[in-house]
């Protein structure tokens, strides 16, 4: 792979705090190496801003290897930028060429209010999990791990759903700001395993109720979420959630 350097125009959303209205700020970036990661380009920008006595751009990031789910930039009209199955921390500058203009925005959704610049509050996801995204088993209560065999296909499907990193790209991309892919990933993960069976009904009903309370929209199967998901979580999980909801809603005894 040939290395090259490029000059770029960066348009970044700046917002001092939740109350601020916010605006775009334009930065000219010189001699950016194609080897850099996208966030390293932001490191360069921030070092420069600090030297100039300006406020650096705040953005969430931590592991920088695509697994923690912290990073959340909407780059040129796409969550996590142009690469498929990727987080923005793993996006590298060779995705761009000399002279490009890059527009970077935070996740946009009422349920994800901006804290500062590109940092948003995704605690709604935690509250959705609190509503039932778990199996109620206290420490020490477990039977032997091999006591209950699990069909390999189902275990694999559960794993594929559980690979969700909770970054919120699905919400950011969805025209309805729906959190259904996130929710469906968790519901599917636990519904596919025998261990998740006892709480199957209450789990899906409570989690859907919490999602509605948080102000996310409905799923209209545009499949935009799957297209931007860094972990390629399938929308068929949403169908499964719908099934779980239907069965639970129709058969749950409690009013």
């Amino acid at each position, binding site marked *: 792979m040939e290395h090259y350097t490029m000059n770029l125009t960066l348009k970044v959303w700046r917002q001092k705090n939740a109350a601020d209205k916010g605006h775009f700020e334009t930065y000219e970036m010189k001699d950016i190496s194609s080897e850099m990661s996208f966030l390293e380009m932001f490191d360069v920008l921030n070092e420069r801003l600090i030297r100039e006595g300006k406020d*650096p751009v*705040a953005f969430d990031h931590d*592991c920088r*290897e695509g697994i*923690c789910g912290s990073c959340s930039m909407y780059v040129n009209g796409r969550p996590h930028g142009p690469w498929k199955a990727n987080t923005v921390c793993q996006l590298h500058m060779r995705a761009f060429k000399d002279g490009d203009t890059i527009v970077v925005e935070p996740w946009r959704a009422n349920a994800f209010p901006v804290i500062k610049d590109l940092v948003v509050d995704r605690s709604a996801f935690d509250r959705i999990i609190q509503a039932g995204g778990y199996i109620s*088993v206290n420490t*020490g209560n477990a039977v032997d791990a091999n006591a209950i065999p699990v069909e390999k296909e189902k275990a694999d499907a559960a794993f594929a759903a559980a*690979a969700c990193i909770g970054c919120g790209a699905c919400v950011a991309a969805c025209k309805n700001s729906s959190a259904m892919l996130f929710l469906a990933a968790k519901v599917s993960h636990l519904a596919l395993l025998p261990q998740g069976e006892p709480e199957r009904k209450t789990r899906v009903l409570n989690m859907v109720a919490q999602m509605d309370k948080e102000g996310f929209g409905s799923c209209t199967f545009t499949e935009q979420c799957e297209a931007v998901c860094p972990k390629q979580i399938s929308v068929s999980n949403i169908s499964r959630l719908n099934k779980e909801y239907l069965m639970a809603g129709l058969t749950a005894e409690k009013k």
Partner: protein
Amino acid sequence: MLDSKIPAGPLDQKWTYYKGHCKLVNPANKRKLEVIVIGTGLAGASAAASLGELGYRVKAFCFQDSPRRAHSIAAQGGINAAKNYQNDGDSVFRLFYDTIKGGDYRAREANVHRLAEVSVNIIDQCVAQGVPFAREYGGLLSNRSFGGTQVQRTFYAAGQTGQQLLIGAYQALERQVALGNVKMYARHEMLDVVIIDGKCRGVICRNLVTGELERHFGHAVLLASGGYGNVFYLSTNAMGSNVTAIWKAHRKGAFFGNPCFTQIHPTCIPVSGDHQSKLTLMSESLRNDGRIWVPKKKGDTRKPNDIPEDERDYYLERRYPAFGNLVPRDVASRAAKERCDAGYGVGSSRQAVYLDYAAAIVRYGKIECNKLGITNPTDEQVRKHGIEVVKEKYGNLFDMYEKITGENPYEVPMRIYPAVHYTMGGLWVDYELMTTVPGLYALGEANFSDHGANRLGASALMQGLADGYFVIPYTIGNYLADEIRTAPISTDHPAFVEAEKNVRERIEKLMSIKGNQTPESFHKRLGKIMWDKCGMARNAEGLKQAITEIQQLRKEFWSDLRVAGNVNEFNPELDKAGRVADFLELGELMCIDALHRNESCGGHFREESQTEEGEAKRDDANYSYVAAWEFKGESNWELHKEPLNFEVAKPTQRSYK
């Protein structure tokens, strides 16, 4: 002075004996006792959840925006457990023995044996929580082998085992949050511990969104804040991983155990330039099938595929015929460094070696063609089928390599180089995981306890969960049973006021320097000193230089630092400045520890202590102890030694020839 509180009795009975005799707290009293947990990785989340289940009132803190983002999530390979599901002769004793030996006989026997004992419960617990481990077609759990062992005892979920385990613990934690047993404080950083009458009674935290300082009382405080590999600036740790929590505790009286024991992981993607902010690990499992080599000619600039077979030096196979490419991490890392230092490195930086899959592709391709009944397959057919197999086994890792480097590893050998990965050192703790400050505990990577001088693959996850799920719920009761008469202490207590004042003053001091250099630039410079002089190979002269350089750098930091933004707002630069300030103190201690330990053991390689063939030489006569450092003031530490007695696993020199 140092009492490790190891229970009496035979090694394999100690934990059982302890559990049967430790003090208990009755349920009504548990509701009155408050516990603070710092960090929500595997150790922190599992501890907070388990203590919440027991009925304690728990407050959990993490600096990330959600507890699910703790860096445990990035662990790839797997988790060890002595289940012996493969019927290949595994047992609790073997796991214990492998861990002690792998740690080069610098860990405490009793702790390691307990770890091996509870390892089996961990797997049960995780499966019950819905962790989707890999399974066989019969529906039972699958295992794979890992470095340093001869049995298959590693449970895994593709290359995302840490993620799946953490999500399991996170879910258990969120359940307790929903039940009201745990109160979660995300985007909060602990900046000091509060000590009242010699006991740890709370913490001072900064709300990272508003910048406000908060006081929190707890009858006990658990530090599960992870390792400090980021002192090297470039490491496989997350950007936010830091030493601050345990360093504050250290300054308040908790001894620091074996600070210089650092694990350098051999297979990481090499540094590509000055802009590099972190390094990415490629799972150790890649060494199962890949062959590591450098050109035989110094400074060879040919493309790897142009270098003929007989001009390649498969140096691990050459030096260690018995283990070949599967030697333990410390050995593999040093061997790579040795070749690069001698001028045989590859890539534009010359600081890399090749990890080659060409042979594996051909080998698998032939097997596959056989299976498919293709007689006399063409080279292309072999390659095609071989690539398919490799893709299935390692596809996600290869994809990651391609994303980062832009090179296709199926065509060109991968370039790898060792990188800082894990710190075996940490706060000194006794058998109960309590530090030298009563009521202050350290769990997981934050403590020093179980891995000695070198950690085996797939053991970090095991230790984090063992501490959180199965050790602390027992041992904390033994302490809290005597605290049931302690009413919650008001956070207006002078000790809280004083601690908050100190934290505030330090923040203000950081903000007031208004110099020219950013926290990032200081961090980079510290990292370079550490990597060059306290990295894979260390010597007395270099370490002495490093200590002086770090002292100077620290002086410069406190006189020329520039922190952007304000105190009372979301300000990642300020967070970073505080962490770098602590790293600048820790770095010095690490060098002091490395300097005092004039032997080579595990990840700690002193050039003065090696065999004629350049292998590490341990010195059991003089250094068979844990070095626990007590903070006495700036650049001033006192060494305490906890002798290590090996009653069961008798020390031998490790050999992989």
